C-alpha cells in the first residue's frame, strides 16, 4: 500500500520563504515534470496548461529545480505583480 505520504515535505527542500510561485506560460512546455515532483498536489496540467493551486503550494521550489525550461520561479511577495 502507500509507502509515501503525499503531504510530507521533501527532505531536500527548505520550507516556505514567504514568496510565491509564478509560471511563465510562454516558457512552459506543458511537460508534466513539475506535477510529478510536487508533494502537495498544487501543480496540475489542465489539458495543456499548467495551473497552480496556491492554497496547497508552500513554495518548496522543487518544481523550479526540475523545470526543463526555467518557466517556474518563486518571487518574493513584494516583487510579485499578481494580486493575492
Amino acid at each position, binding site marked *: 500500500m502507500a509507502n*509515501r505520504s503525499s503531504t510530507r515535505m521533501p527532505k531536500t527542500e527548505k520550507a516556505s520563504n514567504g514568496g510565491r510561485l509564478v509560471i511563465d506560460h510562454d516558457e512552459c*512546455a506543458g511537460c508534466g515534470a513539475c506535477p*510529478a*515532483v510536487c508533494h502537495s498536489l498544487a501543480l496540475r496540467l489542465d489539458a495543456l496548461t499548467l495551473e497552480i493551486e496556491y492554497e496547497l503550494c508552500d513554495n518548496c521550489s522543487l518544481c523550479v529545480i526540475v523545470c526543463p525550461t*526555467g518557466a517556474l520561479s518563486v518571487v518574493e511577495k513584494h516583487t510579485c505583480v499578481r494580486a493575492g
Partner: protein
Amino acid sequence: MVASAIENADAVIVGCGVAGGLLGGRLARDGFRVIVLEKRPQIGVPVRCGEAAGSRQEISQFIPIDESWIVAEINAARMYAPNLTFVEKRFPGVGVMINRDEFDQALAGQAENWGADVRSHHEVTGLRWRDGRVCGVKVKRHTDKTTYDVDARVTVGADGVESFVGRWANLTGHLRAKEIHTAAEYLLEGEGFPTDTIEIYVGRKISPGGYVWVFPKGDRFANVGVGVHPKMAKNGTARDYLHRFVEGHFPDAKKRRFIAGGVSGTKPLKTMVGDGVLLVGEAGRHNNPFSGGGIMNALEGAEEAHKVLKIGLERDTLDNEFLRRYDKAWHNRNGQVIHRFALLREFFFKLDDDDMNRVVSVLDKIVSARPGKITDYTEVFRAAFKTTPGVLWKARRMLW
C-alpha cells in the same frame, strides 16, 4: 447543485498513451465496456518522447506495423565518452524510430476498432470511492466545461510520470529530485546526422547525471535531446544544456520542434495495485530508470495488466489481493531488470568524466575483441567492471 451524470463501464482507463491505448483496446476486444479518457485535445500531442522503440517483430506483437509511423531503422548504438572517443556496437534490426504521436493515435484507433470508447479532451479530476475501494473517476469535459462521473469496476491509471491516479489512490508519492530526469529535445533538420545509429554522449559537463541522445529520424532529420539530473545540473536548465550541445555539434541545423519532459528514475513500485485500481506504463514506473526508455515496457506492462484484468472482470474479482497477480507477473517479466537499471543509474551518478572515458575505452576493447559473443548489456558492463578496478570500487554496492 446539479448532480453529475454517471456513466457505467467495466473499466475506465485514465490516459491514452502507449499503455492506456493498448490495454483499453485489448479489454474492449474481450467484450468489456471500456472508456479511455485522455485530457489532451489530440491524442499523442504534444510528443514527450525520444521516439526510439523496439524491433518491428516486437512491436507487431501489440499492433500491426504501419510503415507510416516508422521513420528510421536502428541497427547500431554508439556511445561517446567525454573525450569524444566512442564505442560502437552493431545490432542489426534491434529497433526502429517512430513518430510517437502517430503511434499513440494508431493504438487509440486500434482500441476504437475493437470497441473501446476513446475520448480526448476529457480530463479526470478525481477518483470515486465506495466502501474504501476505487469505483471510478470524476471527469471534466473541456469542450463544454461540463462534468460527469464514470462508475467502473476497475480504474486504470495510465497517466504518465505525474500519475494523479497513483497519487489519489495512495499507490505512488511525488518523485524526489533524485528520482527524476528532466529532459529537453529538438527535432533538427540538417546535415551530418546518423542514419541508422543511435548516438549517446555522456559527460558531466554536457549532461550531468544523464546523457545526450542523437536519434535518426529519417532523411536529414534527428531527435537531439539532453536529459539531466536536476540536482547535478548547475549550469542552467535541461534546455540550456541542449542549446549548448546543439550549438557545438550542429550549429547549422534548423530547429523544427522543441519538447520537454520529466522521466522517472525509480526502482519498481512495491505495488501497482489497490482495490479496484492499478497502474500501467510510466504511471506504474515501468520505464527504464537508466535510459528513460519506456515504449516497449509500457506495451509489455499493459499486456500483463490485460491478462489479469480479463480474468478479474470475468470473475468479478478485482480486489487488491487478486490484482497482485499483476504485480507478480510484471516483477517476473521486467521488474527485476528495472531494479538493476535503477542501481546502475545510481552508480552512473558517481562516475566523473575520467571514469567515463575509461569505461568507454574498455567497452570498446571488449566489443572489438568479442564482436559475436556479446549479446547482453550485463555482459558488457560486467566485463568493463572487472577490467577497471577504480570503476569496480565505485560499483561495489551494485547487486549484479
